[in-house]
């Protein structure tokens, strides 16, 4: 075990995956990841084409071209950079290219903020990428290695983003078990695509589809996502056998046995929650690890005995509510009755989330358990004096 910065751990995992092409554009707080990778290349520790491009749009386009020619491609971005990639994200998934990226979570401007929330990747929810949210640095490192196995498997062939909270995970130091090259090679076979650009067999990629053909492409993407559910589970199990570490499959529960109140969330906030929940007998946590594909059945099963569910998240859809809250409600509707659901939006733009905020959420949930539902969702930690 070594004490390293989160970004270093991710870069190390990327290196062990032996990508052929890395292309990225710097943006805080993703920078340390790509700087570390550039240094690996400069020191001869990583043999790959590192393409320092003119924008994130180009970064993802380079990854797209590389993947289409049969190379393993990697990129990383966050916030404004991820937003600038938007168009290419859909294009990569539509062409079924298994690019893997680390999506560092940061707020979107305006107002400008370099700090963490999850609005950026939640906005990319529908882009056809597998989205896995990680809880700590070790998981960010491990999930990256898993991501290539999942994305490149012939049954799936979809791009995957590993979402990690900016600064909280990228810029902090923790003891991490860094993967060995050999064990990674044993776990992750070389990328072996069925279709790629080659003069041996000239194929056309990226044709346009008339209305009588388009829907089928989308449906096939959906089917691949459905298969990804099983692949994510399978790869998590195999990873545990190979590396001895496990973070759940599509979800992971803590203290769920006998829990009357369950906090549902994703990302690094789970660390804080665990500390609080330790002292509460009837409160559990449900971590959404895979946001797409969404763990519909798993969520139903995990929440079927709860009385109040509080969905906690660092994103929201102006004019409605938090996105995860909507999704959890949608998964439960028609299936679990007698359950009260509450949504909480907090930590936007890097607002600190002190333990008291979590305690407050648990308090609110208890009130609902006793007195019934009044407000469905609310912001936590708003400063009234500057409103």
């Amino acid at each position, binding site marked *: 075990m070594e004490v390293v910065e989160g970004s270093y751990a991710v870069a190390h995992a990327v290196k062990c995956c032996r990508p*052929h*092409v890395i*292309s990225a554009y710097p943006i805080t707080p993703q920078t340390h990841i790509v700087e570390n990778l550039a240094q690996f290349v400069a020191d001869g520790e990583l*043999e*790959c*084409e590192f*393409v*320092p*491009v*003119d*924008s994130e*749009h*180009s*970064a993802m*386009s*380079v*990854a*797209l*071209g*590389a*993947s*289409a*020619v*049969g*190379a393993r*491609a990697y990129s990383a971005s966050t916030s404004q950079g991820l937003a600038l990639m938007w*168009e*290419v994200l859909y*294009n990569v998934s539509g*062409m079924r290219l298994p690019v893997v990226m680390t999506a560092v979570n940061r707020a979107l401007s305006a107002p400008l903020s370099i700090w963490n929330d999850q609005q950026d990747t939640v906005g990319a929810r529908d882009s056809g990428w597998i989205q896995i949210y990680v809880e700590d640095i070790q998981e960010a490192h491990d999930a990256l290695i898993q991501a290539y196995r999942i994305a490149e498997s012939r049954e799936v062939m979809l791009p995957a983003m590993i979402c990690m909270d900016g600064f909280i995970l990228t810029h902090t130091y923790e003891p991490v078990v860094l993967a060995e090259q050999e064990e990674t090679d044993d776990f992750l076979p070389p990328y072996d695509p069925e279709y790629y*650009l*080659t*003069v041996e*067999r*000239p*194929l*056309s*990629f*990226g*044709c*346009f*589809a*008339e209305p009588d*053909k388009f829907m089928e492409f989308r449906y096939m993407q959906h089917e691949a996502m459905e298969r990804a559910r099983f692949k994510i589970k399978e790869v998590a199990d195999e990873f545990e056998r190979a590396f001895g570490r496990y973070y759940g499959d599509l979800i992971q529960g803590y203290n769920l046995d006998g829990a009357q109140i369950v906090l549902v969330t994703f990302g690094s906030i789970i660390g804080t929650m665990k500390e609080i929940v330790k002292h509460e007998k009837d409160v559990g946590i449900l971590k959404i690890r895979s946001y797409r594909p969404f763990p519909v059945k798993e969520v139903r099963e995990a929440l079927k005995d709860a009385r109040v569910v509080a969905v906690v998240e660092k994103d929201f859809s102006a004019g409605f509510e938090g996105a995860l809250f909507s999704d959890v409600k949608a998964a439960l509707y028609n299936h679990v009755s007698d359950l009260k659901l509450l949504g909480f939006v907090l930590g936007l733009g890097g607002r600190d989330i002190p333990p008291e905020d979590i305690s407050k959420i648990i308090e609110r949930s208890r009130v609902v358990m006793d007195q019934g539902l009044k407000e469905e969702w609310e912001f936590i930690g708003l400063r009234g004096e500057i409103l």
Partner: protein
Amino acid sequence: MGVYRFEGGDTVKNLFVSGHRACAGCGMAIAVKLILEAAGEDVIVVSPTGCLEIVSSPYPETSWRVPWIHSLFENAASVASGIEAGLKALGRKHEAKVLAIAGDGATADIGMGPLSGMFERGHDITYICYDNEAYMNTGVQRSSMTPPGASATTSPAGKVSFGEIHPKKDLASIAVAHGVGYVATASVGYGLDLMRKVRRAIDHDGPSFIHLHTSCCTGWRHPSSKTIEISRLAVLTGLWPLYEVVDGEITDVKRLPKRLPVEDYLKTQGRFSHLFRMEGGEEIIRRIQAIADANAERFGLDLEG
């Protein structure tokens, strides 16, 4: 796959086959066929969104008999960069050369940044901009390459407008300013010259750039039988000089025994017809003539005088 002969007796394969949906007489479609004849089978082609992509790739059909990819409108240079980097990293660099064939809008407007990046990073890619002088695929809207005096749907001629007023970007000079080692202009009107330049560009190590004039009968409004003739007139009037720039030096200028007046070119196309109808049109034509004269001066086009 059609196999046929062209001048010189060599047998060449047709790598851009019929059945595509380009308008009859489309200069770009003729040019692409010639480009691939010159390039041969060992290329991977990237095309951005635009007429070329749309007419050639309605799923499940394709006109491309070489590996081909379309991604988006602005990223052909970046996708090509990724392909070239991927080939290198996979040890397959010898397998194919990378060729981007992109419209003027995709190149000079929305894709300028990616193209600049591709040049600057020195990828071994041949980038050909087929310039039909507007966004044809979306209905003849102006681009930064629409010439002054032309009417386009977003710079239309009207009671108080002569249409487009801004000069074209000098794309070749932009490429040269990046230190691109092989830069050329070409025209679909001069097919063999185009093919020779494509070959030279592909054989050049590192980025190369060809700015290719391709008439569009639909957008320029001329009969589909006049494509080659009108493309040649652009050259013969001095509005589209043909030259190569090798390592920054202008070489191989196509000189003109007797340069024609620009009217000879302008009057063949509906997009300029208002210049001959509207009061004050002569002044615009005079300014267009001045552009041709400046080209003649700069490139030494005139054989006499």
